[in-house]
């Protein structure tokens, strides 16, 4: 149900393009630096184009990152799907099926977002060892659990804004709790799922702290490999920038893919139906 472009809106491209330039400036520096040689990196010439187009940095970065790529996917996909699903169910219950004490449960869960992860590294590692969960499953578990507050928040606030009549109609038709969820809420939650999946995928993909303490060198995800491209003393920013762009590509593809589901009118459609 695409809204027709009104001619009068064309002026919007002016601010949009201006914003695009703001967003692209740092990106431009990252991209051109990725093509530069080590001796070309200099603050004075940061805006200058590289002397030649050579893919050496990208090839070097890829060879260092590729062994970790699969580890990242194996951990990020279940972590983001599961925490999104949990968040959706929690949000549904907390917004629409409140039980006694539900209003206390919401802040209880939400508070978990603010925990400074650096300060709980030790009990986290001890717990995982005690429970016998190691490597990628442990890392995925950590991302699921520490993702629950933010996914619950997003879904609860979204569901809370939906009119109660929407549910009542389905209940009249005899749908039970899960039925209402499946038939009514799930279809119109798609934009929220997109929002939450973008968050979870990005934060799990880019996480370094949990990854480095919960996994060993055989199952390090890509961020650890990316960090490790830098030495402790001399850092080759050209290779580092090339590597960061490569490491960000899967996330960008997820954005582009999920972005297609920002459809307008899903809610309107279900209201009519």
């Amino acid at each position, binding site marked *: 149900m695409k809204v027709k472009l009104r001619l009068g809106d064309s002026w919007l491209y002016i601010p949009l393009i201006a914003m695009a330039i703001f967003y692209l400036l740092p990106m431009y520096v990252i991209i051109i630096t990725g093509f530069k040689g080590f001796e070309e990196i200099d603050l004075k010439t940061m805006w200058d184009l590289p002397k030649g187009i050579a893919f050496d940095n990208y090839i070097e970065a890829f060879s260092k990152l590729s062994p970790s790529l699969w580890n990242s996917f194996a951990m990020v996909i279940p972590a983001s799907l599961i925490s999104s699903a949990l968040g959706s169910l929690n949000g549904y219950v907390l917004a629409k099926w409140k039980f006694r004490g539900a209003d206390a449960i919401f802040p209880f869960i939400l508070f978990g977002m603010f925990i400074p992860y650096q300060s709980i*590294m030790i009990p986290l590692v001890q717990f995982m060892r005690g429970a016998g969960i190691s490597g990628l499953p442990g890392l995925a578990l950590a991302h699921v659990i520490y993702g629950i507050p933010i996914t619950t928040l997003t879904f609860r606030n979204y569901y809370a804004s939906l009119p109660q009549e929407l549910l009542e109609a389905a209940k009249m038709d005899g749908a039970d709790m899960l039925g209402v969820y499946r038939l009514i809420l799930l279809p119109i939650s798609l934009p929220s799922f997109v929002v939450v999946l973008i968050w979870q995928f990005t934060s799990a993909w880019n996480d370094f702290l949990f990854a480095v303490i919960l*996994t060993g060198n055989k199952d390090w995800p890509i961020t650890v490999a990316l960090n490790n491209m830098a030495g402790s003393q001399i850092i080759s920013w050209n290779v580092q920038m090339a590597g960061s762009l490569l490491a960000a590509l899967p996330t960008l593809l997820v954005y582009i893919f999920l972005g297609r589901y920002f459809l307008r009118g899903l809610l309107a459609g279900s209201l009519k139906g």
Partner: protein
Amino acid sequence: MNKKLFALLSILVIASMSLAACGGGAATEAPVAAPAATEAPAAAEASVASMGGAVEVFSWWTGGGEAAGLEAMQGVFAAANPDIEFINAAVAGGAGTNARAVLATRLQAGDPPDSWQGHAGQELIGTYVAGGQIEPLNDLYEAEGWLAVMPETLIPLISQDGNIFSVPVNIHRANVLWYNPAVLEANGVEVPASMEEWFAAMDTLKAAGVIPLALGEQWTKLHLFETVLLGTLGADAYNGLWDGSTDWGSPEVKTALENYAKVLTYANSDSASLSWQDAAQLVVNGDAAFNVMGDWAEGYFRELGKAPKTDYGWAATPGSNGVFQFLSDSFVLAVGAPDPEAATAWLTIAGSKEGQEAFNPIKGSICARTDCDKALFGEYLQSAMDDWSSNVVVGSLTHGVVANDSWKTEIDTALGLFLANNAVDGFQSALVAACASSGPCK
């Protein structure tokens, strides 16, 4: 609703429903364990001992010459111990910041690697020996005859109560003044040997519109601070700061702090936004005349394609001629190492002539052993080898030799406050307090 949309929805519904089902059992791990199980093979435990065992070596050597050097040493190890698997558990992060946090967490959780990297000196002794986490290595030193080939001055710094606790692999020098020969010549400035000469030289340069001193972010200022302390106080009084025999509240220390405050006035205004690399680059580019940095800067200059003596020159920092302020990376044996024999085999290689000769030329440092082949090294490193064997040796503060971690952190915090408020008296009293709370002063 199109097909893809429907597929996505179905996946989510299935995931949600299975979760709802699991909920009854209250098994928090179940949701993850299920999908993860199929992907787990890649995550199979790495440290399971194979026939010849395995050694997990933890370091922060992940990039550039350090990683290449470690790889070369690993090659030597593999040739001597073909049955032992070498697990390189290197984690990056500015001078090992991340690595040390990960290591501390692993040690507290009772999961030590077999061997790990640490700066020789109080960083090791104050942290890991005090924590009972590493084994003495006297037997290994005797069996390998290392006492005869390592500098005498080094051994007390890596020992406690007669026990030697680590195997130093390399030596870096901290008190190096890098300069641009062309800039000095164009302004008629000689390489300064004392603080007074340095100030005079920098006055001339400043008047000529050259940045006298290139400086970077805060840790490079701590590095500069330790060289000014050394240059003002001299080696004996400098050493006394760390064993309690020099009073941090003394007028001499105050002079050093005033010198430091004065040195800072010659620095570039944008120091807070430069890394050490950016700052060092200002010198070889001719924007600045001097830079004080450890001798890993030489490896950086060479990677930039610069030539020694023409594009950059070096000297001991003003007032520290004949003194070698060192730092060293060394490896330890964990208490409760999963495979102590394999770990000992690794340490044997780390301390061997062959291992150090493989590592150091690539890393851009000199051997901790004194019998390495000079021909393997470049011009600067050869001069450093000469100094290492002939100079008075003192330790670096910034790089973990002379002060334990707690003390160093307190000094760094005091320095941060000083950089913000420029109050020499407040700085000095904070340093006195730091020595009392975490150092030997009572």
